């Protein structure tokens, strides 16, 4: 609040009232000259009445949204029909909108089809035919985890295989995971053997 010398301030409440009034009139920090004139008029009003605590005193109340028209324009147009989405595009290729903003179209990044792994994909798949016959393609599947090479099975079979390979290690170093795996195995055993049909027993 700027220091106003013209007014003799007795009451603290009067200061706060004056401060709020100066803000309402949009005078904070800028025009000290105008401040002084306006405030003087207020003080003159005040002094005319007996005291601002008496019931007969009514403050001058003026409702003003914007002190300056420029501020109103700067804020923008009045928002009407809040929540209504005007669907301008109804046909054709529509932009992917999410909460009134278009989602960005991702930049196209083509794959390098001649990267080493893609250029040499499938190498050694016929090593048992074209090699000397000692190696099988499953033995050279290095991209596949070693416990899954040459394996195909449902989740139950896969978990049993996983337990066979890693059970001992998991018991010591991943006890919660081991417990969860066992629970899952048990659940799958009951589900597959008691709740579902496997249609294999006829062939046995």
């Amino acid at each position, binding site marked *: 609040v700027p220091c106003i010398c013209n007014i003799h301030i007795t009451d603290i409440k009067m200061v706060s009232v004056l401060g709020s009034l100066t803000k309402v009139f949009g005078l904070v920090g800028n025009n000290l000259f105008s401040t002084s004139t306006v405030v003087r008029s207020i003080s003159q009003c005040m002094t005319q009445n007996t005291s601002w605590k008496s019931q007969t005193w009514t403050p001058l109340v003026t409702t003003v949204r914007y002190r300056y028209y420029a501020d109103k324009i700067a804020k923008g147009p009045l928002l009407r029909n809040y929540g209504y989405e005007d669907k301008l595009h109804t046909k054709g290729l529509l932009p992917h909108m999410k909460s009134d903003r278009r989602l960005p179209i991702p930049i196209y990044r083509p794959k390098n089809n001649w990267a080493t792994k893609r250029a040499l*994909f*499938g190498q050694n798949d016929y090593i048992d035919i074209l090699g000397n016959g000692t190696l099988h393609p499953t033995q050279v599947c290095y991209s596949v*985890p070693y416990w899954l090479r040459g394996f195909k099975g449902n989740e139950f079979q896969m978990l049993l295989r996983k337990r066979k390979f890693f059970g001992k290690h998991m018991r010591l170093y991943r006890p919660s995971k081991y417990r969860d795996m066992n629970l899952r195995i048990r659940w799958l055993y009951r589900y597959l053997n008691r709740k579902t049909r496997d249609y294999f027993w006829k062939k046995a």
Partner: protein
Amino acid sequence: MSTSVTDFMKTSPVYEPTEGSTHTIQEGKEEDNTSFCKQLSCVCLCCSHLICTGSYGVLIELLVQVLHAAVMFYPAPAVSRLAAPLILDTRTERKRNIVDDREAWIETLDSDVSPSQIGLIKLHPDVFAAYPRLDIIHQNAVWQQKYRRVNYAQTKVLHEVRGGGRKPWPQKGSGRARHGSIRSPLWIGGCKSHGPRAYTTEFYMLSLMDRVHGLLSTLSAKFAQDDIKIVEDLEIPSDEAPYIEKLCEERHWGPAVLFVDDTDIMPRNISIATNTIFHYNIMPVYGLNVHSMLKHDTLVLTVAAVQRIEERLLFHLNRPDRHIVTSSRFKRPAI
């Protein structure tokens, strides 16, 4: 008027043309034979698992210096730089059913030699003139893509989703639908009933003969379309990439070229030249496969590679235990 390989090798390293031949010996070729190519600081590209790729260029430069003292001699192939003409016929027996042998030029990768064709090779029709079965080629290509695939996708099951142990409201009285857990598949934020569960493999094995016929069909199709070029060896005079690029451009070898040799230790120059060019790749014979043959437009085989391929595929076509091999199911290796 063709000589067998064994006779050829027994007599002399230089092929003497028989009478009636229209070609002439090019002099000066014999000198090239010893000085040029065989004293190489060759680079071992194969790791312990016998997988060879021609593209580990970073290692090559280091290893060349390391191996400078210990020079590894590239084993001289059966066909070395020789005087033209050179006609190779690997079949010693003649079959009753007369199917014409297919013939192909033997070329050089040395652009100084003109013309580039230095000989003729006869190819076995059972390997290079088999009927190209497109369905078998497709089967093989799909198998190659699928059998090594592992799906790591996983969705959470009821007991794995955080929370949801308590019954949200009593069974009766509230007027709402009955529920046992807030993480059931009916709820938002709940589990997925039959979603993917990690480590799903699509492994399966095609039978041996299916894969053999896949190779035969692909080789035959490529040969019929003039996409197979036979070369005496993979020696080139310079180790610069533009050399091999220019060579392939001049000869209209497709955008992508696959060089195949019998060994996995490739000559130095071609390894370095093709290192930076990703669509020119080098492979040993045991790495040859249907997918790579389809991916690369031109297949460049050395004579040694052709001999090896023919021998292997004919062996599998005519093996005495074929009926056992085709009927037996694949047994997962015991671990």
